């Protein structure tokens, strides 16, 4: 364009030269004059065009510079986030960088608690109590939910200010923190003047930053979950190792105890026989000492046997499930009446006997009844059903208690999972029940509705529990 303009300029000068020569010769070449006039017009037009193109290029170059700046900011955020280990650091990094994209007077980040699904204030910068209360209201009044569903940043003017000057109200921008699959939380940015924004660019940028931060927070939460799960796994592994140790010790202790009993019997009988015959004081005193110590050894052996009894109780016997359940109901009677719990039993006649470890199955029902009582602290109805459906026998324990929250259902058989306080529960009851039922070749599952109650269904296979070799 610029070169064309210059060649036109050269042409024009040549024509003007001719015009001047003609004019000095006293001839006014009208045609040439008009030609020059037209060409001049063209040159000016072209010059205008060139100038406007130049301006455009300059603008493009500014935009490029902006983009480059933004890229640098993003790169910086990515770096901050990839180095970051805690959620707090991620959020503080996010706010610092958002500040560079869009200067603000204050900011707050609310994260959704992975367990309770509630918004929790997780980070705030230069916001007073009143402003924080307003951000809280945005959550309570559903504005945040709406922003989350819109999946984009939204400006929310401060309603108090709006009356005075709607054009230049202060307010905040709510930016969703979400990954492609998961809502993580929100970032609220406070601005003195909302209208000064070059909305789309700034919002795009904030959304982008928020998405990066959301991914980082999610990764962090996942990492935490994995860490917790690993810890739990390690713990339960230790528990299993401990249980195995106890079992091995039990077997050994009971073997040792039996071997010790014979020599103990001989010593004890001999000493007591001598005590009957010897009357000399010093000898008698010594014999008494030997007798006392022998009885002490006997006492230790007995308690060792008692302690390991649970490990040794592996006897499977053909028993009636009904008899076991009735026994446990009798045990719990006092507790039921204390908590005003009515008990309904529905035992189908002719349910076949099962090969069970009665002690263990008692433990299971005791646990289920205890849990039901805990869920019906203010009274209720406990329904216990036994029935056979070839080839299985079913036992149902149903309460009218407060039920189990949906998100907890899958966890109730996990060791150490409990919603009770440490004084009330260890989180091992249902885990042990599960293990016992599994060992019997049975199944246990749960159905529950919050506010209505919980039903545990136990299934025993007659075939499984009538075979041999269970020990």
């Amino acid at each position, binding site marked *: 364009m610029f070169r064309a303009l210059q060649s036109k300029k050269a042409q024009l000068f040549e024509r003007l030269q001719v015009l001047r020569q003609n004019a000095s010769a006293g001839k006014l070449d009208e045609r040439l004059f008009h030609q020059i006039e037209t060409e001049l017009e063209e040159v000016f037009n072209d010059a205008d065009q060139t100038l406007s193109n130049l301006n455009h290029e300059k603008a493009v170059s500014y935009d490029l510079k902006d983009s480059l700046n933004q890229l640098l900011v993003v790169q910086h955020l990515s770096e901050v986030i990839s180095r970051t280990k805690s959620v707090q650091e991620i959020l503080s990094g996010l706010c610092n960088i958002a500040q560079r994209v869009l200067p603000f007077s204050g900011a707050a980040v609310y994260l959704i608690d992975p367990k309770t699904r509630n918004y929790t204030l997780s980070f705030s910068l230069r916001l007073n109590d009143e402003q924080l209360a307003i951000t809280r209201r945005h959550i309570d009044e559903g504005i945040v939910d709406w922003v989350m569903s819109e999946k984009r940043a939204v400006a929310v003017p401060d309603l108090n200010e709006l009356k005075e000057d709607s054009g230049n109200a202060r307010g905040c921008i709510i930016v969703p923190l979400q990954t492609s699959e998961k809502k993580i939380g929100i970032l609220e940015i406070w601005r003195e003047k909302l209208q000064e924004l070059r909305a789309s660019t700034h919002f795009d940028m904030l959304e982008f930053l928020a998405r990066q931060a959301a991914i980082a927070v999610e990764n962090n939460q996942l990492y935490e979950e994995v860490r917790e799960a690993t810890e739990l796994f390690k713990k339960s592994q230790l528990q299993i190792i401990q249980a195995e140790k106890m079992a091995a010790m039990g077997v050994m202790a009971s073997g040792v105890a039996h071997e010790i*009993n014979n020599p103990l019997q*001989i010593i004890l009988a001999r000493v*007591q026989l001598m005590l009957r015959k010897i009357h000399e004081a010093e000898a008698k005193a010594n014999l008494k000492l030997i007798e006392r110590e022998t009885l002490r050894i006997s006492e230790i052996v007995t308690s060792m*046997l008692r302690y390991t*009894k649970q490990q040794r109780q592996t*006897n499977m016997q053909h028993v009636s499930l009904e008899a076991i359940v009735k026994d446990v109901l009798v045990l719990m009677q006092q507790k039921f009446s204390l908590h005003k719990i009515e008990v309904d039993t529905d035992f189908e006649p002719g349910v076949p006997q099962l090969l069970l470890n009665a002690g263990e199955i008692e433990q299971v029902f005791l646990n289920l009844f205890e849990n039901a009582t805990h869920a019906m602290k203010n009274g209720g109805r406990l329904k216990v059903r036994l029935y056979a459906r070839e080839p299985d026998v079913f036992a149902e324990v149903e309460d009218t208690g407060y039920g189990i929250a949906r998100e907890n259902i899958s966890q109730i058989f996990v060791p150490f999972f409990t919603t009770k306080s440490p004084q009330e529960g260890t989180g091992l009851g249902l885990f042990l029940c599960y293990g016992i039922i599994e060992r019997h070749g049975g199944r246990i599952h749960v159905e529950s509705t919050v506010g209505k109650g919980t039903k545990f269904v136990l299934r025993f296979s007659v075939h499984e529990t009538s075979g041999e070799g269970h020990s």
Partner: protein
Amino acid sequence: MKKILLVDDEESIREVFAEILTEEGYQVATVENGDEGLKLLAKEPFDLILVDKKMPGIDGFDFVRQVRAMNRPVKIVLITGSISENPLKEVDAYLAKPCEIDELISMVQKMLP
């Protein structure tokens, strides 16, 4: 004089129990295993059998069942380390090992009034 058969694989226990019961005025025969006990029972009658549960060869349980199969009017006391497991209805009473002399004597007196 009431006759007692003591079946125990441990010699020292046989000796001391026999001594105690003899002093109490019972006639005591001792054998070291179930087979010998059954042989002796086939030859002569006894009023009471004291038998250890844990013995090599036929154990106390098997011995008791075989004695009951002989259909003799004899009382049987099983001596065992742990009474709680597997109670046997063919047995008249259990004696926990180790027992004190007084326990042994009063048990025998109860069985042979």
